[in-house]
């Protein structure tokens, strides 16, 4: 009944670390209970991952450590080159060009304008010894603005939106608490108003009160900016709070996709049932 084309579509994404062989995909996955190919020893980080995200939707990916969730985000964002598969983004060549086949220059454009990434470790997303303002300005300079006042004004607005005290704009993130580092990272990801944000375990490792504030911020961003998001987490609580639809991953494969409440209350696959019953 929904004929609106997806904002983002991933088709059969596969990422294999190592030489790879014809049997890699067939001999790994949830049935085999492993992601290392017994024939050639290559690691199948993810295989045949397909998903669609609509404008303004939050899509969750949940699964245990090593299930391939982060690999999906990293391939999409261009941190890793996929072994095979295609991805399409509506604002990129009207959704007709495969992101994975784009030239390095165009990939760079996608990373800086169409996608925003928030990593589990702030050190991956920020230059920890540069000021917070400079971290955000780096993104804004890519767009070609060279006006110092405008850039600083925009950095200020972004830090305010993510509740980082403006007085600390000239301090390097190294001096910040974990929660505040995450908020600077989110401000940077938002810099050029990308239509899709990618969150990789953003609250993992933060203490609960700080976790709650970061999650509140993400909910607020969804409400105010109506931006689409993929939220990767091992924590079903985070997924329940944020995502309308969720994919469950295990050994590099999506084992179940559904409405988040259906995944939690009526899980179909054996692994999903195990995951849900393991909740605290």
């Amino acid at each position, binding site marked *: *009944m929904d004929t609106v084309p997806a904002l983002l579509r991933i088709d059969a994404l596969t990422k294999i670390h190592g030489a790879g062989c014809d049997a890699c995909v067939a001999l790994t996955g949830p049935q085999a209970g492993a992601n290392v190919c017994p024939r050639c020893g290559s690691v199948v980080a993810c295989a045949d991952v397909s998903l669609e995200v609509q404008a303004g939707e939050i899509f969750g990916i949940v699964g245990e450590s090593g299930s391939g969730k982060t690999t999906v985000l990293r391939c999409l964002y261009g941190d890793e080159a996929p072994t095979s598969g295609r991805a399409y983004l509506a604002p990129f060549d009207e959704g007709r060009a495969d992101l994975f086949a784009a030239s390095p220059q165009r990939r760079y454009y996608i990373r800086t304008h169409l996608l925003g990434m928030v990593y589990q470790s702030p050190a991956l997303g920020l230059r920890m010894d540069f000021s917070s303002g400079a971290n955000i300005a780096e993104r804004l300079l890519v767009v070609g603005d060279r006006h110092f006042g405008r850039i600083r004004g925009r950095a200020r607005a972004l830090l305010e939106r993510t509740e980082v005290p403006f007085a600390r704009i000239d301090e390097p993130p190294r001096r910040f608490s974990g929660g505040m580092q995450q908020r600077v990272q989110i401000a940077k990801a938002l810099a050029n108003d990308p239509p899709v944000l990618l969150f990789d375990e953003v609250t993992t490792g933060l203490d609960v009160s700080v976790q709650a504030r970061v999650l509140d911020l993400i909910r607020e961003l969804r409400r105010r900016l109506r931006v689409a998001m993929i939220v990767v987490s091992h924590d079903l609580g985070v997924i329940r709070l944020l995502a309308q639809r969720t994919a469950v991953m295990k050994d590099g494969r999506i084992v179940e996709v*559904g*409405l988040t409440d259906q995944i939690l209350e009526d899980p179909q696959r054996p692994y999903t049932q195990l995951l849900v019953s393991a909740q605290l």
Partner: protein
Amino acid sequence: MPLLSVERLAKTFRLHALGGLAVRGCADVSFDVDPGQCVRLAGPSGSGKSSVLKCIYRTYRPTSGTLRYRAEDGRAVDLGALDDRGVLALRRREIAYVPQFLRVVPRVPARDIIAEGLWALDGDVAAGRNAADAVLGRLEIRPTLWDLSPVTFSGGEQQRVNLARALVLRPRLLLLDEPTSALSA
């Protein structure tokens, strides 16, 4: 023409950790709901009342049977076979579900919890708050409570917030799961 036609609905849970043990939620349930009609599902605890509601809202995937729903635009859809996006679209505008107990994030004020469903539609913050306030007033929740989290409210007040959250969407089909069971007579 009924708004909802439930035909031979069955829901069986298959528990893989227990060797595929089948647990029956409900079986062979059929009934119609006309527009504006109030239908009561009565029965003892464990008889499958909630399973029927959750299948209609698609929190559960029905095992068999059809759930023919006539949407506002006139189309008939089988809720059991509808894709997830179609279900989400109906939940946003047409079908609301009130769970037995209010479950909310403890930091969010009552009026925002109620307005959230409207914000998801158009993002108009002021209009959403106004609509939420109107429903809170109609359900006789004291205005001094509107900016507080309902976690601190009495059972009856919580249940009214729970109801307000669904009513504010002006749904065509409202699913109420034991709406008074947590309250004194």
